[in-house]
C-alpha cells in the first residue's frame, strides 16, 4: 500500500514538474543566441576574410559553435583574443598568438594617376583624394586590409610596416629565464 502511494505521489510530482518545465521552455524561450551578436560586435567588422571565414558574422557564428579558436582573427591580435576568450570563458594560451605585423598602405606619388578606385573600396575611408589628384592614405585610419592594393591599376599602393618613432617605441619584454637552454632537451 505504502509502496503504491509512494509511486503515485512521485509520478504525479514528476508529471507536474515536467509540465512546468515544458511551459517554461515554451514561454521563456531565448529567441537567438545573443553571443553571436556580442562576438560580432567585438570583431573588427572589416570583412577582411583573413580568418578563413567569408566575413565577420560567419566567423562569430563559428566561434559561438566552437568551430574556431579565440585566436582566429589576425588583425585583432592578442587584445581581441583575450576579449573573445573572456566572453566565451575559454582558456587562452597567448603564446600561440602572433601579434599581427601592422602594415599600412602608402601611396607612391610618382605613379598615382588619381583614378579614385582605391578610395572607393577603402572600408574605413582612410584614403583621401579627388579624381586626377594624387591620393594619400591617412595612416591612423588604415586597417591594413589591402583592398586598395588589389584594385590599384598602377601598383602605386604598397603596404609598409608602421614606422617606429619615439611616440610608439616600447620596451621589450625581458627574455624568460632558461629560454636559451630549454631547447635541445635530451630526455623529454
Amino acid at each position, binding site marked *: 500500500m505504502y509502496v503504491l502511494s509512494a509511486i503515485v505521489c512521485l509520478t504525479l510530482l514528476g508529471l507536474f514538474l515536467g509540465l512546468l518545465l515544458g511551459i517554461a521552455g515554451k514561454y521563456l524561450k531565448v529567441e537567438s543566441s545573443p553571443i553571436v551578436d556580442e562576438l560580432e560586435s567585438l570583431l573588427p567588422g*572589416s570583412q577582411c576574410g583573413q580568418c578563413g571565414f567569408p566575413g565577420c558574422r560567419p566567423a562569430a557564428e563559428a566561434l559561438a559553435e566552437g568551430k574556431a579558436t579565440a585566436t582566429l582573427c589576425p588583425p585583432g591580435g592578442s587584445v581581441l583574443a583575450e576579449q573573445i576568450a573572456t566572453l566565451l570563458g575559454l582558456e587562452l594560451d597567448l603564446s600561440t598568438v602572433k601579434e599581427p605585423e601592422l602594415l599600412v598602405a602608402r601611396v607612391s606619388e610618382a605613379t598615382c594617376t588619381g583614378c579614385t578606385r582605391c578610395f572607393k573600396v577603402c572600408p574605413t575611408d582612410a584614403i583621401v583624394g579627388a579624381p586626377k589628384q594624387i591620393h594619400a592614405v591617412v595612416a591612423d585610419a588604415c586597417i591594413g586590409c589591402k583592398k586598395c592594393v588589389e584594385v590599384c591599376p598602377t601598383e602605386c599602393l604598397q603596404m609598409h610596416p608602421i614606422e617606429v618613432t*619615439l611616440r610608439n617605441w*616600447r620596451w621589450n619584454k625581458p627574455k624568460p*629565464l632558461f629560454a636559451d637552454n630549454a631547447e635541445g632537451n635530451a630526455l623529454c
Partner: protein
Amino acid sequence: MLSFFSKPRIQGGVHAEQHKDATAHQPIVYSFPLPKKLYIPLQQHVGKPAEPLIRVGDKVLKGQLLAYSQGMISAPVHAPSSGVIVDVNDYPAPHPSALPIRMIVLETDGNDEWVKLCPPEDPFLLEPEDISLRVGAAGIVGLGGATFPTAVKLNMGRENHIDTLIINGAECEPYLSCDDRLMQECAAQIIDGVRLMLHGMRTERAVVAIEDNKPAAYQAMQAAALPYPSIEVRQIPTRYPMGWDRQLIRYVTGKEVPVGCRSSEVGVTIHNVGTAQAVHKAIRLGQPLVSRVVTVSGGAVSKPMNVLVPLGTLISELFAYCQVDAAHTARIIMGGPMMGDALPHTGLPTVKATSGVLALSAPELKDSAEQPCIRCASCVTVCPAGLRPVDMANNIRINQLDVAVDLGLKDCISCGCCSYICPSNIPLVQYFKYASGAVAARQQAQHKSEQTKRLMDDRNARMERIARQQLEEEQARIAAKAERERLKAEQESVA
C-alpha cells in the same frame, strides 16, 4: 621596531653605494671648449615640441629664440651659442632607442656672443604673472630630470594656494653631484631663485631639502638663506629615492599626494635646485636656459668632473674632454645609474634633462646573469611606492597584464630600487616598463578598432544613403517619364 606601527614618513628605499667622491670635491669646470656643432632637439621637455622660427642659413646670437613653445604645456628653445643654423632635420635622440627626432643644428662661430638681454630692474616689483611669463620665455623646465615646464608649475602654484615650496636638493642618485656642487658654489643664486619663485607663486614659505651626505652644500645654503626667514634649509636622511618628489613631500610636510593628483592640489610644489638657479639667471640677468652643469663620471672616465656645457653638445665631445676610456666603457647612461637611460652610442646631444652622463665599466654594473626568483621579498621591502614587484613581474611574465595593473603597475615610478636589490638579478623595472608600454599599446589598439568600426559604420550609412538616393532618382525619373507619356497621350487624344 615600532616604526612599523606608526605611519612611516619614509617608505622603502635602498642605501645605494654613493660613488660621488670622484666629482663632489672638485669645483665645476667652466672652461669646456665650445663645440663646432650643437644639436638642439626641439623637444627637451614634457609636452608638445617647440616650433622652429628660424631657417637654415640664419645667423643667430647666443640666447636668441630658435623655436617657440606651442600649446599649454611646452617650452621654447634658444641658441646655446652664436653661429649659423646649418640644418633642421631628424637626428638620433638621447633616448635608449636613439630614434630620430627633429633637431636644429647650429654651427658655432666661436664668439659666443649674447643677444641683447633685458632684465628687469627690480624683479620683486614685477607682477607674479610676469615672473611666470619670463620663466616660460626663458625655456626653463624642471632640471632634476622630469623636464616639466617650470612656468606651468608656477602658474598652477598660483592657482592653488601653495603653503610650502620645496626645493629638491636631495640628489639621491649615486654618481651625480652636479646639484651638490651647484649648492656649494652658487648658493646665493639658488636662494635668490627660490625667492623669485616664492614671489611668482605668492607663497610664503620654502624648504630646501638636502640629503645629509652633503654637509658642505648644507652649510653653504644655510649661510645664503640666513637673511631670509621664509626659507628654511633642512637636512634629510640619505636614502634613495629621497629625491622622488612625493617621498620628499611626505617627509618634509607629512602630506601624502593622492594618486592622480598634482602635488599643488595638496598645497605643495617642488622644484629642483638647478631650476632655482636657472630662474635666477632668467629673471636677474635675462638669460634663457642655454647651458647646464653635467656630471661626467663612472669607472671608465679618467677625469670625472662637473662641467658646464652648452645644451646640444654631443656626448662624444663631452667624453673626449673628460678622457673616457672607450675600451672599458660597458654602458653609457644619461642621468643617474638607478633611473637613467642606457644609450646605445655617444653621438647624441645633451639636453635640458641631462644631469649626468656616466660611462660605467663592467665591474660597476649589476651582474646580468638572471636566476630564479626566491620570493625573498626584498623588492617589496624596498619599494617606495608600496607595490609588490615580485607579484607584478610574475604576472607580466605570463602575460596577465590586467592583474599587474590591478596590483598597481600604474603606480610604479621606475625608481629601480627593486632591480637594485634583487639577489636573482631579475630585470624587474624592465618588466614594468614593458608592461606599461604593452598596456598603452593595447589601449591604442582598442581605440583604433573602435574608430575603425565607427568609420566603417559611417561609410556603410553613406553608401546606403547614396544607393537610396539613386534609387529614388531612378524612380522619380521613371515616374516623370510615365507622366510625360501620359500627358503626351492625353494631348494626342485631345488633338
